[in-house]
């Protein structure tokens, strides 16, 4: 194997787009933990469910192979809308009961969601892998062949980063969310109804996971159990980036995505091990993550 530019550049692009997927899912995970103190083990399962719903929507509009690539947009919109509604509902009836509970209890409940949604997927979509094929021509960038769809994913990831940043920094709602990361009690004492904030944050986080599910549909086949692989890597991202930091989550997601993309080539069986060595190295130097602050409790 030749480790020249022709190998490195496409691999780097693959890694960055994998990083974008990690970012979209981990951003919600991190926000939900930062604001509500809920460790949502089912977060990547929402990603998977979103992917299946997007798949069904896509195939309702056209055939799974060779359809108009733009159909990904309405298919993803359907998945995001469905999962956001599910997120609002689950927060109301289930997650709300977990506030202030211990992490093991939260993991137990959200792991039950992983199993329930997994079975639901099996019932509705069966056990076979599902995928859509767009048949896009590769792009030639700097003389290297690149899957053009990587560029779509990278653009979506950057747009979400910008959107989240704007939402958190520039809107009143975002300011309250950042305040709630520090003290729920103080926010309430200022007369702000935190219940609404929590519901929106949870729904938004789940919606972002569904967005990822829809957007990567043309790139990765949907498979049962893929959520477990992803959630483990998302936890790694959030820990490296620092809980509650959007920028940190983004940087960590790209680092881990790229690391994974090269590791899987160099040492396929050890790719996950390499990621976790990286996590350990970061934690030794900065226990609160790359962008987290020591102040946070």
């Amino acid at each position, binding site marked *: 194997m030749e480790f020249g530019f022709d190998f490195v550049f496409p691999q780097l692009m693959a890694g960055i787009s994998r990083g974008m997927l990690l970012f979209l899912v981990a951003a919600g995970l991190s926000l939900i933990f930062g604001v509500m103190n809920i460790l949502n083990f089912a977060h990547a399962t929402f990603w998977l469910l979103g992917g299946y719903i997007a798949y069904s929507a896509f195939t309702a509009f056209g055939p799974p192979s060779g359809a108009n690539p733009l159909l990904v947009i309405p298919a993803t919109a359907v998945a995001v809308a469905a999962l956001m509604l599910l997120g609002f509902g689950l927060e109301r009836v289930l997650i709300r009961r977990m506030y202030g509970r211990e992490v093991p209890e939260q993991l137990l409940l959200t792991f039950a969601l992983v199993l329930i949604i997994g079975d639901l997927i099996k019932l509705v979509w069966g056990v076979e892998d599902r995928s859509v094929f767009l048949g896009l021509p590769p792009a030639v960038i700097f003389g290297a062949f690149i899957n053009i769809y990587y560029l779509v994913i990278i653009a979506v990831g950057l747009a979400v980063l910008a959107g989240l940043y704007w939402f958190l920094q520039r809107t*009143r709602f975002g300011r*309250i969310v950042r305040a709630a990361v520090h*003290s729920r*009690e103080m926010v*309430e*004492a200022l007369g702000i109804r935190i219940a609404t904030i929590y519901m929106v944050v949870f729904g938004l986080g789940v919606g972002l996971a569904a967005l990822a599910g829809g957007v990567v549909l043309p790139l990765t086949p949907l498979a049962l159990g893929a959520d477990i692989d992803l959630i483990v890597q998302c936890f790694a991202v959030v820990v490296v980036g620092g809980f509650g930091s959007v920028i940190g989550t983004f940087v960590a997601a790209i680092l881990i995505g790229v690391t994974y993309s090269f590791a899987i080539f160099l040492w396929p069986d050890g790719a996950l091990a390499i990621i976790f060595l990286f996590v350990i190295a970061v934690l030794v130097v900065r226990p609160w993550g790359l962008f987290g602050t020591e102040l946070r409790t």
Partner: protein
Amino acid sequence: MPGLKVRDLHTYYGTSHILFDVSLEIEDRSTVCLLGRNGAGKTTTLKSIMGLATPRSGAILLDDLEIGGKSPVDIARLGVGYVPEERIIFPDLTVRENLEVGEKTAPSYVVERWSVDAIYGLFPMLEALDGRVGAYLSGGEQQMLSIGRTLMGNPSLLLLDEPVEGLAPAVVSALSTQINRLKKMGLTILFSEQNLAFSEAIADRVFIIESGRIKYEGTFADLNADAGLKHRYLAVG
């Protein structure tokens, strides 16, 4: 009669009984001090009024409306502003953003609504710090910001828990001037304090609390005339 009335409050933390029969009466537009040593029950009293601690029995009337048993959010929306002893500035938000979080979409209980500029008028020190994040403020700056943030919600009753605790003398005198201005604007104020001199400079009346019980209620003139009382319940005799 408008104002705040607290009657026969009993508050517990778990099984430990903290407040015993606490009763307070604060006339509308007056400023009252709750004096007492460390651990006397001042914070618990203010938290009970704010709904942050739940009294097991007793009544709390705000302008003759029972607020006991309501949630802190609802109590805040009825016009009670609470400034905690720990100040609890949001560390990642700038000074301006901290103030903006204090705005709420509830009825205003003051004639003239507060704005960020009006807060900067009251605390000129904060204006210079407009874009600085909360994590990098001194104790005095945090206290002014915490008060300003609560004022942004346009409360009619302000609860201040030991507002000058641990602050330098110059800051203490600035705060006493500023709180006096709030008083002149017509706010009803209940604040807790350990230090007699500071409270005398702003309060109209004083309650003394000790071991969760109210031991004295009256004017500073009467309190100063009774050396034994001061010696028994206050840090300095």
